[in-house]
């Protein structure tokens, strides 16, 4: 087993993620947990466990990113935009567009030929178009994550959700249910609405540049398909999509 040389930790609003990498950027160990409100305590404990798992020394360099990044005693602290770009470029080795749908925010990052961020866009202050949005509405519909794809495939029509504000969208869904509308059509509509919202952030994607996806929502194949259909482009999901930010943070300390 190669030697661990860097740790990257990405503290998001929903999940706490970290990876240990070797000098080539290969992931040797990883950890994903729900985010604890006591960020520092969780990070100290989880990083100690991760170091033990990977046999890493106590003084190994740590790169931190995500909303909780300032709470980490790290060698380098960078924003999630820069880290996602680094993590994505490590995989793609070429200029690309990265769509990252996380718990609290959605990012579209344009990555240049050297892996640099050439431009980026993020959702507004609210949770419109984020993983949290999906989570809340699916929770209201009592739809399990595993069933999403099968439910969407079972219907042709979709009922679009016009509001992208999580609170108003939930009210809208409640009204639709009260009208006796089909839950599966609402689920399909929800994904279509979200993909439209995300692609509006991405702006003009007509250039011949590959599009990749990361973040926890990339694990939802229905969302990837909705984005593909709406954009008319191929959306490639990066390996370990939820760990791209943590990987970028780790790469920053090499």
């Amino acid at each position: 087993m190669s030697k661990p040389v860097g740790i990257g930790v990405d503290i998001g609003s929903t999940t706490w993620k970290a990876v240990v990498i070797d000098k080539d950027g290969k992931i040797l160990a990883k950890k994903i947990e729900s985010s604890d409100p006591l960020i520092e305590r969780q990070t100290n404990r989880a990083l100690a466990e991760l170091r033990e798992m990977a046999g890493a020394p106590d003084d190994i360099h740590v790169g931190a990113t995500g909303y909780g990044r300032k709470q980490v005693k790290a060698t380098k602290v960078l924003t999630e935009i820069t880290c996602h770009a680094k993590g994505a470029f490590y995989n793609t080795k070429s200029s690309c567009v990265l769509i990252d749908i996380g718990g609290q925010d959605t990012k579209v990052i344009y990555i240049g030929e050297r892996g640099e961020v050439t431009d980026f866009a993020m959702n507004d202050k609210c949770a419109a178009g984020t993983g949290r949005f999906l989570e809340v509405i699916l929770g209201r519909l009592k739809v399990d994550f595993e069933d999403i794809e099968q439910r969407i495939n079972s219907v042709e029509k979709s009922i679009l959700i016009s509001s992208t504000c999580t609170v108003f969208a939930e009210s809208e869904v409640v009204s639709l249910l009260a009208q006796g509308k089909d839950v599966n059509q609402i689920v399909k509509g929800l994904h279509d609405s979200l993909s439209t919202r995300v692609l509006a952030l991405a702006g003009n994607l007509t250039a011949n540049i590959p599009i990749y996806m990361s973040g926890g929502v990339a694990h939802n194949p229905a969302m990837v398909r909705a984005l593909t259909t709406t954009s008319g482009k191929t959306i490639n999901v990066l390996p370990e999509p939820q760990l791209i930010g943590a990987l970028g943070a780790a790469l920053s300390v090499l």
Partner: protein
Amino acid sequence: MIKRRVQYELAKRVVGPFITSLDQWKSKQRQKKRKPRASEFGPPLQTIGKLKEIMTKHYLEGRYADGAVPVAWVTSGFPSEILRPFDFHVVYPENHAAVCAARKQVPQISEPIEMQGFSRDLCSYARTDMGNALITNTPVGRLPKPDLLCCCTNICQTVMYWYRWLADYYNVPLILIDTPFIYGAMKDHHIEYISDQLEELMVIAERVSKKHIDREVYTNILNLAGEGCQLWGECLETGQAKPSPWTGFDTFFHIAPIVAIRGTEECNAYYRMLRDELKDRISKGIGGIKNEQYRLLWDNLPMWFNVAEFATMFAEKGFNFVCATYSNAWAEAKDLLTPEDPFGSCAEAYARVYLNRDMKNRLETMKEMATAFDVDGAVLHSDRSCKPYSVGQIDVKRKFAEDLGIKSIVLEADHGDQRLYSKEQGETRLQAFMESFSE
């Protein structure tokens, strides 16, 4: 009337200078006791003391102005030069609202007006000003009640409704100077239309002030105003030096005299002093920040409630705002105000302001600034309170990238109301923007 006049003159000639001297003495004492702190900034500008003196005196005079001299409230784009020959004490409610915002007092001041049904989406300057009328207690003590209200539509249309509310509340005359929006070149009929309104303004100003205009005095004031804009422009141009001797955030504060006391010798003397100090700093290689690595352009008004915090965040990473379209707006009239045609030139100067011209002109101005100041990037503040200023920024961003290869970021915030700015998210975006230069 006589008692108020005595109070006013005392405030102007004795109390004002005394308070500012006392304030400066206290400040020096505090500095002596304080251990020097590590700072990302260059040494503070010496003229800041004079700036405080001028503005303290201005607001102190204002406290006793009503009843002593005629008082006019004007919008920032109003040709206030015309009012000075009538000895009006001129108040800029926007300047005052910026002071309230810098003290983070906009939410509490605008609350009474929001309770009356005015939306929070309305300009925070307007809300602060109307709210201030209801609470009559502000960071500067009090503003004198107006005898005359003057607004000009060259900065936005909101001023019209805002000043109508003030006219109704204070029951005083309102003068509205309507400036047609200028697409492309300015036409003669534009100038004629505005000049006619300026002539009408004189009649009302004479009636309110009970004084006849001395056209020679007016021409002299116009000259002084033109020279003031020229001097302010010279101060701003020093930002082209590398490193820039000051920061864009400094310009936001040093702008106060050209806004509030434009057309006076005091204003011009101040800018001569500032210009000389800035040139001296250039000759000694003193920068506004210690380690200027990247140079940025700022578009739109500042976020008054966190200027210092913001400046520090950028300075720590070696970023300096070397120019700002907002500060530059008060230097634009430098060649336009001419004594040969005092009304026509005034009409032209005030119709040609940055916000009253088409997108093409705005973009060209910004590109010229970006090139002259050799900037690496731009922060475009999308100001919830100032939509006329914020519209088109997405296109500016695209054109900057395409035509100049300059990166920019559009930041959602507000110039006055901190409730409309999401600090954590805003800072993350700005930090990512800064990282995109170095990582």
